[in-house]
């Protein structure tokens, strides 16, 4: 990472990329507060499966969301690479902190505006509005997520039968 570029070019946005299963996602670092090592999570009874529970973050209670479940994958299995990214998100006009459970953090990545492609309206199984853009890699792409919208919605994955509807739109 070259921090000097940040100043030199106004159109550069910095992202933190992370891995869920085989896919790479990214969030604007402005949304990120810190990365935490795994620690015991207390499950809150009768809450949705993707809400893994709460942890202690410096004396405050931080909800932790399993991003794999949120993105339609199997629940996260804990490995050495599993960690919690602490985010500041806006939910219903209220700012709050939450943790997301990811398989691994990948890197801090600076992208120029010109390098970011619009997200295609088809061909992805995720709802378009959650993807801010895409960054093409040699063998795939990174999906740049709009974190605020993701946590304002229960459903991120397009259900199979809705897919055709999405294309019609």
């Amino acid at each position, binding site marked *: *990472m070259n*921090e*000097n570029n*940040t*100043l030199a070019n106004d159109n550069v946005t*910095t992202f*933190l990329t992370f891995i869920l299963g085989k896919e790479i996602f990214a969030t604007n*670092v*402005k949304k*990120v*507060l*810190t*990365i935490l*090592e795994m*620690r*015991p999570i*207390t*499950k*809150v*009874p*009768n*809450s949705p499966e993707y*809400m893994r*529970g*709460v*942890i*202690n973050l*410096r*004396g*405050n*209670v931080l*909800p932790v*969301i399993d991003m794999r479940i949120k993105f339609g994958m199997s629940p996260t299995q804990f490995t050495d*690479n599993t*960690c919690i990214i*602490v985010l500041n998100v806006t*939910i*219903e006009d*209220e700012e*709050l902190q*939450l943790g997301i459970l990811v398989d691994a*953090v*990948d*890197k*801090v990545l600076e992208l120029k505006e010109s390098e970011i492609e619009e997200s295609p309206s088809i061909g992805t199984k995720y709802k378009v509005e959650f993807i801010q853009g895409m960054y093409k890699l040699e063998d795939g792409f990174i999906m740049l997520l709009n974190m605020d919208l993701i*946590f304002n919605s229960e459903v991120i994955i397009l259900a199979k039968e809705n897919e055709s509807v999405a294309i019609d739109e």
Partner: protein
Amino acid sequence: MDKFRDKFIEEASDLINELEKVLLELESNKENPDLIQQIFRVMHSLKGGSAMFGFNKIDKFTHHLENIYDLIRNNKLQMTDEILDITLAAVDHLRNLAQEKDDSETKNNIQHDLLLVKIVDIINENVAGLEENKTIQPIVVASNKELSTYYISFKPYHNIFNYGTNPLYLIDELCDLGETKIFPRYDNLPDLDDLDEKKCFFYWDIFLATNQGINAISEVFIFADDQCKLKVHKISEINLLEEISFIGIIEETINNQKDINIDQLLLLTHELEKVFEKEQAKTEKQTTTTSHEAGISSIRVSSEKLDNLINWVSELVTIQARLSLFAQETETDGLLPIAEEVEKISRHLRDDVFSIRLIPIENMLTRFQRLVRELSHELNKDVVFKTEGTETELDKNIIEVLADPLMHIIRNSLDHGIESTEERKKLGKPNRSVILLKAFYSGTNVIIQISDDGKGIDPEKIKSQAILKGLISHDADFSKKEALDLLFLPGFSTAEKITKVSGRGVGMDVVKRKIAEIRGEVDIDSILNEGTTITIRLPLTLSIIDGLLVQIGETKFVIPLSSVDKCYEFKHEKLANSVNYLIRTDDHEVAFLNLREMFVIDGTPPETEHVVVVQFGETKIGLSVDNIIGQYQAVLKPLGKLYKKQQSISGATILGDGTVALVLDTNKLISDYAHSEKKIGG
């Protein structure tokens, strides 16, 4: 060097601990300059040491952080939650960095990059306009093209050696600033016979191409400025040392033993610049300083300090829990009694501190008096507002939240509850109607009742309204109480028309929600033509409760002690084989909730389980748990917005070992149970 490295790691971890401690203090006291200064000093020490002993990442990291705190302590930057959060995250990261053996820790590297970006962002966003500020220089790395040329005439006085200053050393330092061309001048050298080795007879003409400002040059001579004659001139915006013709002309001048005349020099460079047509493309970056004006708020200092005090006591209670846990685990002689003593003291302290924040409810009654007077006049009703138990005290934070819902309830009474004077006459009621606000203690709760002697609420009317609105079905069989409870449903209002007084859109559901926010319960009772009573049950205080720490599977729960009646032990089989979840305790039959089932907790229950009998109002139920750990003072933390749908848990608390326990809302569990019983029974 390695043993010093180890020493430094030790020292660094002390410094990092100190940093964390001060930061946590700063959290409740953001403007405290002493704390900021202390943070700056620690950062500074960390930076100095890490640079010394080759911890380059720590060096770089603390360098930026130190800059931030330097700006804050010089009032150029406002301390914000964001900065505090970042610094706290940085503390954790620094701790990892100090322990890091090599660079292979990917997670550390990513965290490093991430935090660095965020820290640099803070500096750039806030201080980009402070051009003069050298602290931001390391971030803006000037390119080679931005070298300027300076001419420095350095003439030491003869006695400069007496001050312990070596002119050559100063020249060395100049060389560190950039590219130099140095011309020593011997013109003043006396004859050998007169040469005094203790005196300096040399002087120097120096040309320096550097990207540093004139200040950096003057700085080299700070300690010698009264020991020499010094002239520093910027002679060009480009690097003239690269121009052979320039150097040639200068060399010629000097060989002729002539002094350099600055005016001629400037003329010369001006000519040269024109000839070479060097571009002086300098894009002055337009930057604006974000001015952070302290927001004017009407917070009373005294109550702010009070909140701080409460926070500290909460912290103390938390740390005391850790101490007790530690004392029990280590079994060190004599530690346990001390821990118990500390627990006792902190309990007293807690009670006393919390009592400071309790204020009598009469403080908020004046506005209700006024409301009743003005509104009754407007509505042409004869109403008197009476109060009882106004000396009853409540936490000031509760009182603040309570004012609005109470206002709404009183308005409802005036508008809908109390009949018009004619109606009252027809019913043979006294002309003057009464609204009574009554407050009293009930265990660890405070009860506030607002009653009127108005027309009351007709449950049949509510039911038909609810059916009309599609909230319930035609054939639903509702008791009077259940019918009245419908009033709390969102969007329900019995007012046939929306009046000016009650306003639009605010119903009893809002009242209920507001009161739930302060962990209160609201109940309504009414007798037709006699009046309506609204009962609000509130906790004495919000932040700390005495609880019973219990465990189910891996999860720990806190049951508020105020609601605990008794605890019993049962064999698992006995509970499992019970009929209708009823068990016999002492000489009563008590229904119990199998929390493990209700909460869908994995694992198998132990052979012997425990049942904690809790009480709310008249209802008692048992809660089955694996294990009772003991009494626990729980500092309540909200679960937050994401768990707002979670009803049976009222919050969480941090345990001595740093994990999170959930606080059960027993009142909610009991009333839910009571409702379901009625539905099953009816």
